[in-house]
């Protein structure tokens, strides 16, 4: 941009604008700082690193009370792992479909379909899962309640699917456009084109898609709150009930005195979540940049 020569009006606008930017950045920084502050790390009221250990149980009402949220970490792992296992192959498949195999009208219909999926709020997904899968799983697997980590994982997969699909499609479209003719011109199959050429070239984009799905899965609250079951016990497997991290926060915050050890524990868990998701988002930005660079080789 050439050097600015600003009139008084311009200067006013610039000042207002920079003030707005400063305010935005301060607000976002404040959020991070405050979340960290509430863990007690800065003033010595931190409940101790044992809260991250899987061996510390969650027994806030016992004497002495124990505030380990390892059960939530394991539940989060199971739920997000399961949802990724479902949504990643399906989402990449949709991406290949949109980029290469779909007839034009179907490809065009896919975009609003995925936007619709992405726009449905988490609480509605939770509700939907409640009136469908929770009922069905309770019957099929003979459980006291169909609220299990698997139920939550299944619905979570539906929620992250559109993000994985559209991010993959974006990357795949570019790679297919560049390589389709050169590869298929040799008389090889679509499967060969994908496996030996497209997959390698689009890999950063596909990795970004997976990271995005993971970030979304980690952060979803209401759906897992309504579907994973309410228990502070360590989950044993997919069909166990569990309490992923976000559900723990949502459930316990309302019943916690500000400043108490339980409060500090919850905010420590929140900071862990923040770190994980922020890290993933930064990774996604890097991967997207690498994809762009790679394609200009």
């Amino acid at each position, binding site marked *: 941009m050439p050097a600015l020569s600003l009139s008084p009006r311009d200067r006013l606008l610039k000042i207002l604008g920079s*003030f*707005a930017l400063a305010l935005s*950045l301060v607000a976002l920084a404040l959020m991070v700082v405050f979340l960290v502050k509430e863990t007690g790390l800065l003033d010595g009221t931190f409940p101790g690193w044992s809260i991250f250990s899987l061996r510390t149980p969650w027994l806030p009402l016992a004497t002495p009370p124990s505030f380990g949220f390892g059960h939530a970490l394991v539940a989060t792992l199971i739920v997000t792992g399961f949802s990724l296992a479902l949504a990643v192959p*399906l989402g990449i498949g*949709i991406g290949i*479909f949109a980029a290469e195999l779909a007839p034009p009208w179907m490809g065009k219909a896919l975009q609003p379909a995925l936007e619709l999926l992405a*726009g449905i709020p988490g609480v509605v997904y939770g509700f939907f899962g409640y009136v469908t899968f929770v009922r069905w799983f309770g019957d099929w697997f003979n459980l006291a309640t169909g609220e299990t980590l698997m139920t939550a994982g299944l619905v979570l997969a539906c929620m992250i699917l559109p993000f994985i699909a559209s991010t993959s499609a974006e990357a795949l479209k570019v790679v297919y456009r560049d390589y389709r003719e050169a590869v298929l011109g040799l008389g090889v*199959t679509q499967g060969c084109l994908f496996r030996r050429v497209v997959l390698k070239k689009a890999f950063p984009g596909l990795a970004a898609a997976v990271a995005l799905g993971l970030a979304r899965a980690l*952060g979803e609250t209401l759906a897992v709150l309504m579907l994973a079951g309410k228990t502070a016990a360590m989950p044993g497997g997919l069909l166990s009930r569990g309490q992923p991290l976000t559900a723990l926060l949502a459930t316990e915050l309302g019943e916690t005195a500000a400043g108490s050890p339980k409060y500090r524990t919850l905010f420590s868990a929140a900071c862990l979540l923040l770190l994980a998701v922020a890290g993933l988002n930064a990774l996604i930005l890097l991967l997207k940049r690498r994809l762009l660079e790679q394609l200009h080789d």
Partner: protein
Amino acid sequence: MTSFLDRLFRGSVWLCGLVGLALPVWIVGFILAHGARALSWNLLVGRPSGFPLGSEGGILPAILGSLALVVLGLAVALPIGLGAGLYLAEFCTSPNVRAWSRAAVEVLAGVPSVLYGLFGYAFFVVFLRMGISLLAGGLVLGLVMLPFILISAQEAFTAVGAQYREATLSLGVDRAAWILGVLLPKARSRILAGLVLAVGHAMGSAAPVLFTASVFYSKGGLAFGQPVMTLPTHLYFLVSEGISLEHAFATALILVAGLFLFNSAAMLLRYYMREL
């Protein structure tokens, strides 16, 4: 690769595509079908009643509460987001500041909404002693919408600027004239489209307002210092307390239909923008 494997590949990809098309139709259709049955005029304008509370009557306070929160949030996020986006697109001379600000905002745009809720509780509700109130919730929602509004404003201004800035400034007018006379009008529909999506997203989020603004029942009067009912939290309460599945369906329908309207409005605006 044999012909069989290739057909397997193509078949699986087709299957994925069909699932991608059918899934939203199934989910939305399901809610539509069941919710339409429970929908009534009374539901939209009445207050919760019956025993247990909420199994009869209407959800007007929740609708009003959601609207109030979003309007308050917009009142804060819109000027700040627009101003910041304008600054980044038009006045910021350092590419580093631009890149890092944008990166920070993008990273935080992906932060889970529950963390906004936690921050809102610790900061607005407790620290600033606003209590669980419309004000606290509105400010939190503003914070939720801010990154989206900032990013879409910046992108809109950058795109329009690339096309028109040089031609306009070469007429010798100052930046303010360019911004107010050409940039803002031309970027308007693009920003509106992004805004609509941000609002839709905020309105459907329960986690930020769950512990900052919402309450299970309120008569419907709106005051800054009082908690409010909201559509997403009301849906949650109806389900988690097992109050009324029928009303839950209707509430879900209203939420989804409202968001669908918002999305369609965004699409129409994008289309309108293409014709400019």
